[in-house]
């Protein structure tokens, strides 16, 4: 466990939401927004602050699919696999991205922490199917080839930065 994690982020979030057990989900959401995942270090700290056992916070964090205990990439790519996107061939896009990034169903984040690829069950944009999102930006009517181009663009973007 790295000890370098800056707990002041957590303090800011707690200050804005209130230091009470009922705020736990909002606090975890806040942390995840800032860190893109829930670092293990925050658990003992929150436990102490909120008077809730670490096991109970872990319980909340594992109950919701949206919380991640693993670090996620800078770009989180979500491939919609709802019914509409599925029938319009979302899976080949997923397979293409995984192949390009050397990812699997179990390993969803690249080692350089740049990309995370995961599926999601319907983004509610069925008219634009098949849809993928990168962080919160929506890319409609995707194909495996377009996805590959998008990856290249994103890679360029990081090089420039």
């Amino acid at each position: 466990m790295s000890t370098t994690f800056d707990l002041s982020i957590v303090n800011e979030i707690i200050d804005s939401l209130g230091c009470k057990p009922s705020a736990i989900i909002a606090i975890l959401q806040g942390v995840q927004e800032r860190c893109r995942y829930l670092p293990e270090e925050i658990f003992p700290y929150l436990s102490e602050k909120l008077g809730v056992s670490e096991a109970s916070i872990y319980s909340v964090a594992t109950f919701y699919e949206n919380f991640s205990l693993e670090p996620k990439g800078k770009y989180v790519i979500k491939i919609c696999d709802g019914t509409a996107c599925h029938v319009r061939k979302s899976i080949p896009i997923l397979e293409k991205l995984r192949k390009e990034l050397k990812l699997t169903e179990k390993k969803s984040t690249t080692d350089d922490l740049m990309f995370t690829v995961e599926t999601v069950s319907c983004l509610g944009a069925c008219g634009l199917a098949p849809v993928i999102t990168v962080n919160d930006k929506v890319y409609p009517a995707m194909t495996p080839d377009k996805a590959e181009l998008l990856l290249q663009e994103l890679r360029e973007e990081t090089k420039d930065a």
Partner: protein
Amino acid sequence: MDKEYMIIDGIPVEINGEKNLLELIRKVGIKLPTFCYHSELSIYGACRMCMVENKRGELEAACSTPPRAGMEIRTNVERLRRYRKMILELLLANHCRDCTTCGNNGKCKLQDLAMKFNMSDVRFPNGVTEPEIDNSSPCITRDQNRCILCGDCVRVCNEIQGVGAIDFAHRGAKMKVSTAFDRPIANSPCVGCGQCAAVCPTGAIVVKNDVDAVWKALDDRTTSVTVQVAPAVRVAIGKEFGLPAGENAIGRIVAALRRMNFDRIYDTSTGADLTVLEESEELLERLADEKSTMPMFTSCCPAWVNYCEKSHPELLPHISTCRSPMQMLASVIKEQKDQPDKKRVHVAVMPCTAKKFEASRSEFVKDGTPNVDYVITTQELIQMIKESGIVFSELEPEAMDLPLGVNTGAGVIFGVTGGVTEAVLRRLYAEKSMAGLFAITYKDVRGLEGVKKATIKIGEKELNIAIVSGLKNASELVKQMKSGEEHFDFIEVMACPGGCINGAGQPYVSFSEVAVRGKGLYSADKLSTIKRSEENPLMVELYGGTLKGRVHELLHVEYASENAK
């Protein structure tokens, strides 16, 4: 007020403030099956075994429905029986069914109900592959695959003990009881009190079993095996062999142990006498010194000591430096140099699972071996008696061995919450008549309430005393103390509600029966010739001999911080 009635299976039943239908149904003699209901815990309503049918044909969970006047319910109709059987079938489909080799064989609720409902077939394929065992704790063993997710362990750990080592993690089919980040239980806040194992209806959490190692030592002719038996064991064992609940069976225990080849049999209450003398001395010293750390907490309970180490390290200076009675007696036993040609093994029979951890602590290892080699629980002793074929109820009671078998009533009541305090007060009270004894008894130190408070005058000083059992109660009291709301001089803490008589190593009974065990100990005290620890003739002998100049070395301890979080 007029009496209120409801109808259960066609029979009018008076409602008498029962908090739910289940309590009322059980009161009228119907044993409705449950997995997740314990009267001391919050209501969870997960197992659905206690469903009943109301007048309109709707189903209600009896555990989470309050009784109302005029209500009519049926507890045993065709569809309820079918549903209950279905629940069992689904649980069994996802449960490893190797009952004969399970640690909870014969004590399992799932096994018991499967038998009662005549489960002849499970139609679904068995979804369990490999056992998932966590063996990291010296006190308990967990097997995820025997878990039925009733949540009893989670609630006892959170609500009664306030430890919070475990909770549910994940959801749906992946849901399981887990520590934070699925760490081994030994690396969690767990203090080994074992109350989770006591309430677990299946074999998902069981107490570690050390019986084989003890048999091995007993079979070895080059080894001399001494044993000490804790006070609470004697009032919990008899019922298992058909004797009345709460009956003091120490004489029979001694007889059984002797037949099993134990060389010397001693009583942990002798160690308790030493504890009384040392602890009251320490209390007086702390009271006399204005710079000392006050209040003083008792140190007999290993789960409490470990709880402080893990969750309240700032309290450690408040804990008495006295070793627990088990460890005091063990270090005195180690000094006995009879039978020098033999290897020596010391076994302790305890009502407690946390004692297994205490025995393994480095502070209590001397000359390369632990002072207590093995701790076995009351349940393990019962197993040994059954294994050896001894008919316990037919044994003639026998007496402890010399030289260390002399004990007092003060030591015996250590097994019940308030007992340590009462014994220490007997020592400190100047008035040594019978009336003096009664005066202490009536000062609110007896009874199984989780928190008791008393003010007692010792010499010129008024002592504020608190007696707590259940770790949640202890942490609440600590909070009040820290906020300055309450002030105490002496606080007795026992981790298990009601004290050692309700330890997790004892056969599991309802809390009302735990009270019967407490009565058993108090009547053992009444029967004892010597009531005060300082009047135990053995004490004079020990302090003049073995302990001379070595009191601190043999009877006190400073806990290293290795077990702190």
